[in-house]
């Protein structure tokens, strides 16, 4: 089957007068890691909840794993795993009992349940804490358990709503390793996140701003499209002081402090690293200049800035 894992068509969700999701359409390919980015309140969770059948859209349609969310929510639910933004397993039960309950809810029993429980405990590295009370575990381990519960029934698609919020960097790294393993195994992963470094792991990224999907592409293409300028990192003992002279260089659009140094954004083809180094040197500042790739952060800021500007102009 090569039909897309998720098809969203003109999804709209209105809460009173507030439009949380506004005419959102996209497709997610099978087996891909699809990142859904946006600020708080941009409509990420609402989209996920619509796709999981937890929320009815005001208008628009969604097909998940080949089933219409509106017409056959049960089939959709049987095909997906969901991990909510807030940790939502039973804190008063041991790890293994949480797995047993959600396994049962997905229809696993007997030998199948035992086999999958062992596999998940193994995969997520939770074998040692299987009898520990869930509430006593640190956040990172809880998140892995939540993921374990979501994939126990081997769903075609998993929806992860900010799975790594509030989790330390090591735990985040382990978690993303698990996500990539799932994807390699053929599972489609739909993930929302705040962390733009995590978004780099995604095959494609959708960017939400105020309920609208304003950009959707691979990370590399997004950078090319939204940050066409060239980026240079300027480092050196007095790098910060070179910002004035660097601004004067033809083709430079923007100079911003970045750590102890500077990030320079310039029109493509109009200036090179040497030009910048020479300009700083002429002003008496010895600096190193190096071309760099724009980050998703740059993309995010460019896109959000543009949307905000459009809004102002419109108003």
């Amino acid at each position, binding site marked *: 089957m090569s039909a897309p894992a998720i098809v969203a068509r003109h999804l709209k969700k209105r809460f009173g007068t507030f439009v949380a999701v506004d005419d959102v359409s996209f497709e997610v390919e099978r087996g891909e890691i699809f990142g859904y980015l946006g600020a708080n309140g941009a409509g990420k969770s609402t989209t996920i909840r619509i796709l999981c059948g937890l929320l009815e859209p005001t208008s628009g349609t969604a097909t998940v794993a080949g089933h219409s969310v509106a017409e056959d929510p049960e089939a959709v639910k*049987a095909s997906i795993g969901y991990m909510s933004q807030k*940790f939502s397993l039973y804190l008063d*039960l041991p790890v293994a009992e949480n797995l047993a*309950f959600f396994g049962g809810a997905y229809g696993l029993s007997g030998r199948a349940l035992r086999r999958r429980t062992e596999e998940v405990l193994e995969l997520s590295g939770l074998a040692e804490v299987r009898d520990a009370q869930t509430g006593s575990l640190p956040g990172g381990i809880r998140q892995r358990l939540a993921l374990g519960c979501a994939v126990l029934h081997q769903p075609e698609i998993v929806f992860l709503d900010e799975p790594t919020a509030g989790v330390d960097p090591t735990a985040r790294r382990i978690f993303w390793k698990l996500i990539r393993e799932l994807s390699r195994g053929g599972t489609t992963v739909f993930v929302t996140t705040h962390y733009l470094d995590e978004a780099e792991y995604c095959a494609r990224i959708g960017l939400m701003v105020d309920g609208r999907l304003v950009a959707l592409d691979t990370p590399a293409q997004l950078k090319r499209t939204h940050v066409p300028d060239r980026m240079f990192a300027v480092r050196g003992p007095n790098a910060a002081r070179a910002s004035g002279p660097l601004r004067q260089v033809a083709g430079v659009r923007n100079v911003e402090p970045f750590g102890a140094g500077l990030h320079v954004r310039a029109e493509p083809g109009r200036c090179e690293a040497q030009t910048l180094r020479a300009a700083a040197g002429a002003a008496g500042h010895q600096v190193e200049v190096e071309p760099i790739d724009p980050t998703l952060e740059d993309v995010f800021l460019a896109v959000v800035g543009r949307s905000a500007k459009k809004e102002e102009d419109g108003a």
Partner: protein
Amino acid sequence: MPRRPSRRTQFLAVVRKETLQTARDKRMLVMLLGGPLLQLLVFGYAVDFKVDRVPTVVVDGDQTSESREHARGLMADGTLRWVKGGKSEDGGGSRNGRRSSSSANVAPPPVTPSVGATSGSPGAEGPAPLDRLGVSGAGPMPVAEADAALVNGDAAAAIILPKGFSRDLARGETAHVQVVIDGTDPNRATVAGAAVAGYFAEVSGDLLRARLAQQATRPATASGGISLVPRIWFNPGLDSPPFMIPGVMAMLVIIVTTIVTAMGLAREREMGTLEQVLVTPIRPSVLLLGKLLPYVVIGFLDVALALAIGAYVFDLPIRGSRALLAAATFVYLLSTLGVGLLISTISKTQQQAFLGGFLFAMPAILLSGVMTPIRSMPLWLQAVTYLNPLRYYVEVLRANLLKGAGWSDLWTQLVALLVFGVGILFVATMRFRKRAV
């Protein structure tokens, strides 16, 4: 991957999870099983509608042997208890009563003059010879004191035998007795009034017969009146516990099952676990049935526990069919659990659920006939009680336990409970399904 998961598997998973959660929650277990125990004992011992030992002061303005005889006679059956300036006397007269701890008056022993008394006045029991000498002096003071005793609560009834009481009786004139009763507790007032009236009715009857016998040439047979001999069935001792315990059982079930169910679901909503469950392919009806089953078991345990305590501690009889009892409990549980579920669908937080449960439980208990008879309520309120499942269950329990009533006597109540239970559960499930999260 299972396309359509088996409902049985899902149901069992929910039951297992719910049972484990309840069993692991020590506080919850105490509340579910220990609470009922405590309530039953408290209600069984403390709630006693039988009125006796009503503290009574006697103002004897007559001070004759007859008047004292009547005062003692009034106390004889134990309904009234003679309180005399801080000391009570149990009809017998000669024996000193227990000293009441009331601060009104520190009374000295009968014979000694009341030196230490704060008011400086002799108590009503003050040395008789002295009073007889100063006849007029005995009157006003005790009346004021009796008045004070009624006001400060040392006495709930005052009996005033006026001067000349026995003289009037002896002359064959109508003698007057004043009885003042504290009406703040209507039940007690009624009983105390009836005791006094009963006593004097008897005395009048005796006097009348005696007088007739004197006037008649032949000795009066003194019969021919209507003799009323009440025989009380089912609870001949008119003990409160056998009446109260069925009511308390019904209350317990409401508190345990309704409030706990409402709060349990509200907690899942609050914690976000409900959302996690709702993205699984589990059907709402399967989920709810699985969640309710453990509480059905707990409800039965509570009823059994209450029956055991009732039987062993309070001599509660179990005269009717146990199968009927179990059936009634089951259909009643459908209602109480259904209401809990319904409350949980309209509350967002555990506090709201608790309050909702409480707001249901209070009127349900008050309108059930547990505490006060339904027939003494205004008609429109009586009509409301027909919508109260608690009412039917209490009726079944009392009739079954105390009177041994059977299926043919109680089928209407059972049907009513079944209709309520299924109806409420249905509505609650529909509402739950509609506003899933």
